[in-house]
Structure formats: structure tokens, C-alpha cells
């Protein structure tokens, strides 16, 4: 029997063949419904092309139909992991257009809710990261802590995920009685937990080896691809909207902006992105303590007409969500419906860089990469 040594087109038989892997839309580690088309040589990827849109709900179009007040519940669904900050972004945009000033207590309530939401979201990110690397326990521990925050937020606004807590002009409800004591009790319990997570996961040698020096994003690439939030800070850019383009009452609080240091590898690797989130949780806890301490008295919501009609104009709003600078472009035309709403989310920017980063990584690294960007699929698709 003779072996044919050539294909019809003259290529040699003994060349390795590329394999096309279809990862998703249903896959355990795609954090929602994402799809990647991977071209791989064995375990090493040539490229991973992202295919998004499975969770597209045309929220921007809905905004043009439901009115200014009515859009607030929909902002919960833009990023369901951290609905508070998205609420806040919409409220800020509408208030700016309508010239509404939020009472100070309302702003404090917003900060407290938003920072609890940030911890909530980062917990899920850190836990899911461990899960994708193969450690299952940190995930359940993180979700356990998250449950406590959910309990708090449920008490605050009646829902555990889609909060719809903020309103144009302030927040819907004042803090319930005894809420500050409960938050403090939670923080006293939570801060040691983060240290424990360090011992369990962050310092684990296998974990570090899996993440250090993987998918390094340089400062220049991060900026060029418009990475935002923790992903940008991990690449060494000290930029936080809360600090550098302040909104709400954030200038009144003393907190630091952690950046990636490349402790175990190079600046901007997956491990940096992970540890920046952990440090941010500690900073959020710090902000929460200050906010609870300095909580002013007074109303929590300004008088805003039910039939809200801001004058024509347009506004660019930036809000620091857990997934970074969420950039809202809102156009009003003087009617009771927004004319145009565009949301550029953190995950959207992060998704677009994956194709470039994936070259030469292993399939297992792609999972770590997606997790380290903390991509939430509905936020990409909106």
C-alpha cells in the first residue's frame, strides 16, 4: 500500500492541520452567552474571534419609547451584576439634562448602594475567576458573601438583582432603620474575608502560575482599545472616574486607586487584573465606612415632576461601574422621551481586545482571559 504524500493542491500531508473549535454560545465559562470561534493548533490558539449579540435586547431603542422615569428599570438589565451603578449613570444623565440637584442625603444613599453593588460585582468576578481556573470553593465563598450584600440591598430597595433603587432626583427610599449598623457589621466581617480569599486563592502557587504573564495588556494597548476600569488600572494607568472626573459626592471620601504592579509577572497580566479587583473591594469598604459616618440628614429625593421633560440638549456622562468607565451619551429633544441613548460599557471594550490578545495563548488561557476582564455578556450586547 502506498501512502499519498501530497494533497491535491500540493500541500504536504505531514503538515499539522488547524482545528476550528466552537466555544459557546453554551459553554461553562463564557459568563453568559458568548461565542468564540477558535482556530487552534492543538491546545495553542491562533486566534479567537468573538461573536456577540446573543443577549441583545435593544435597550437603547427601548429608551426611546419608555420615557425618562420608565427607563430606570431597564438600566438594571444593562449590567445585571452591578445594577446600582448603571441606575446611577442614567439618573445622572437625566438630572444633568433636566437641571435637577440631588439632595446630599440622596447622594450618600447612592454612594452606599453603589459601593455595596461594586463589592457584590467584584466578588462575583473574583469567585468566577477562581472557578474558571478550576478552584470551585472560592466561588461559593464569594457568592456566600454576595448573598449577605444581596440581603442588605433587598432590605434597602426590595430586590436582590434588579434594584431600580435610584430615581431621577435622588433615590426611591431612605435607608431603612438600623441599616448603617447592619452594613458596618457586614464590613467588619467582610474585610477579614478578603484576606482569607488571599490565602485561599490569590497567593496559591498554581493560581499565580496560571495567571501571571498570561495575556499581558500593555499600557498603550489598553488605552488604544479603550479598556476601562480595573482592566485599565491593571495595566498601570491610575485613572478612576470617581477620583479624576468626580461625580456625586465621591470627592468627599478618602480612598486610593489601586493599579497593577506586576508582582508575579508583568504589569497588565491576568493576575494583576484579578488583584486590582480585590484591592478595590477593600477601598469600597473604606468608602462605605466613611459614607455611613458622614451621612447627612434631610430628604433623599428632589422634587421632580412625574412628567419629566428636560430641555433639548445632549450630555456625555461617565460613571465608574465595577467594569469601569461606563460612558453614556444621552440626547434630549424636549419631549417626554429621550431622543437617543448610547451606552459604551466596559465589557464591550474588553471584548474587542480579546481577538488580538488570544494569539498564541492556550485554550485554557482564553478562559482565564475572559474571566480576568470580568466580561458580563448582557453588558456587551445591551
Amino acid at each position, binding site marked *: 500500500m502506498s501512502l499519498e504524500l501530497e494533497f491535491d493542491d500540493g500541500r504536504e500531508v505531514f503538515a499539522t492541520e488547524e482545528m476550528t473549535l466552537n466555544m459557546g454560545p453554551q459553554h461553562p465559562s463564557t459568563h453568559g452567552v458568548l461565542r468564540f470561534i477558535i482556530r487552534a493548533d492543538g491546545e495553542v490558539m491562533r486566534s479567537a474571534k468573538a461573536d*456577540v*449579540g446573543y443577549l*441583545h435586547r*435593544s435597550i*437603547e*431603542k427601548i429608551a426611546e419609547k419608555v420615557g425618562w422615569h420608565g427607563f430606570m428599570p431597564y438600566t438594571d438589565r444593562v449590567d445585571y451584576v452591578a445594577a446600582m451603578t448603571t441606575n446611577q449613570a442614567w439618573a445622572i444623565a437625566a438630572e*444633568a*439634562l433636566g437641571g435637577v440637584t440631588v439632595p446630599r442625603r440622596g447622594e450618600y444613599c447612592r454612594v452606599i448602594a453603589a459601593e455595596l453593588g461594586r463589592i457584590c460585582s467584584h466578588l462575583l468576578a473574583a469567585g468566577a475567576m477562581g472557578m474558571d481556573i478550576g478552584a470551585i470553593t472560592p466561588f461559593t465563598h464569594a457568592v456566600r458573601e454576595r448573598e449577605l450584600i444581596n440581603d442588605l440591598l433587598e432590605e434597602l430597595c426590595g430586590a436582590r438583582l434588579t434594584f431600580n433603587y435610584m430615581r431621577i432626583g435622588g433615590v426611591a427610599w431612605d435607608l431603612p432603620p438600623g441599616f448603617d449598623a447592619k452594613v458596618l457589621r457586614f464590613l467588619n466581617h467582610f474585610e477579614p474575608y478578603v484576606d482569607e480569599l488571599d490565602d485561599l486563592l490569590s497567593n496559591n502557587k498554581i493560581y499565580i502560575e496560571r495567571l501571571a504573564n498570561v495575556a499581558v495588556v500593555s499600557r*498603550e494597548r489598553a*488605552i*488604544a*482599545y*479603550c479598556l476601562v476600569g480595573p482592566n485599565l488600572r491593571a495595566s498601570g*494607568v491610575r*485613572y478612576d472616574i470617581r477620583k*479624576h472626573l468626580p461625580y456625586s459626592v465621591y470627592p468627599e471620601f478618602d480612598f486610593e486607586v489601586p493599579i497593577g504592579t506586576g508582582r508575579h509577572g508583568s504589569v497588565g497580566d491576568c493576575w494583576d487584573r484579578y488583584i486590582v479587583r480585590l484591592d478595590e473591594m477593600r477601598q469600597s469598604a473604606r468608602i462605605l465606612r466613611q459614607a455611613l459616618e458622614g451621612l447627612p440628614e434631610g430628604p433623599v429625593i428632589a422634587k421632580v415632576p412625574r412628567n419629566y421633560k428636560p*430641555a*433639548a*440638549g*445632549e*450630555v*456625555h456622562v*461617565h460613571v465608574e461601574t465595577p467594569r469601569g*468607565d461606563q*460612558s453614556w*451619551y444621552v*440626547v434630549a429633544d424636549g419631549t417626554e422621551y429621550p*431622543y*437617543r441613548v*448610547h451606552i*459604551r460599557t466596559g465589557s*464591550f*471594550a474588553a*471584548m*474587542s*481586545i480579546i481577538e*488580538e490578545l488570544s494569539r498564541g495563548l492556550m485554550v485554557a488561557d482564553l478562559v482565564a482571559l475572559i474571566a480576568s476582564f470580568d466580561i458580563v455578556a448582557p453588558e456587551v*450586547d*445591551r
Partner: protein
Amino acid sequence: MNTAAIQQLLHERFGSGVGPVESARLSDAVEVDPLSVDEIALFLRDQPDLAFDCLNNLSGTDRPARGKIQVTYELFSYVHRHAFVLKVDARRDRPQVKTVENVWPAANWLEREVYDLLGVVFLGHSDLRRLLLPDDWIGYPLRKDYVEAPEYHGISTVRESILALPERR
């Protein structure tokens, strides 16, 4: 550097392709020619005292009253920490804008999104496909006159309300 100063710089360099500062309430913008936006973008990025290294947001707005689709670029400089809003007006019947993908890679997906939802064609884009909607979707949903097809591949896109709603609305 504020918008007026940047407009001054741009006007000196590019002449008539750069319009005056448009002062809408709450935001200032400069409108430029859609077919030379790529050169202007390159200038904005590479000029050392501008150094807009980040395309923060890119969105399209349909303005049927003016027969235009407006594309808004929100730029940010991490070097100088200043922002700038650039706008181009594309003709609504044949919207064409030069791509800025080569200037800021972030524009790749953002432009695809605008193409997908508003139908603006970005000339020179490397991979101008629909991003969020299925490839065979008909129409551009964010246009004001968009009417959704009653069905997609035999699947109805309408869900009847169980409540017969009163007529007054």
C-alpha cells in the same frame, strides 16, 4: 485645552473641513467633514499637545428632520486628561464616513455597532459586519423610521398582550 482652542488648531490645519464649535446645552462639539475624519483623528491623536490617545465613545444618532445621521466621537487624552467631542454628519440616504479604526483600534467594534444599528458605512473598515444583530437582519433598528418586520425566519416578532389595553394611551 478646551473645545474652542482645539477647534482653532483643527481649523488652521484643515481649513473648511472643520466647522465651528457647536454649543449644544451641556456639551460642545466640533463638526467635521465625514470623509476627512480619519485624517483629523490622526492629527488629534498624534499632535503632542492634544494627544487624544483614547476613543472613549462612538455613537450614531439618526436625525431624520435634517436628513442626517450624526456620528459622535468622544475623545479622551490620558496624557493631558482632557476630552473633546467630534461630530460628523452623514447623509441619511447614503451614510458614509471614513473609518478611524486605524487611529484607535477601539473604533473597530464601535463602528461595527453603529453600522449594525444605524446603517452607517465606515469606508475602509477592515471587517464591517453586523455585530449585535444576526447577519441577515433587515433594516437598521435605531433609525427613527425603522419598522420591525412582523416575523424573522418564520418566528413572530410580536407578542400579543394578554391584557386588552384601553385605547386612551
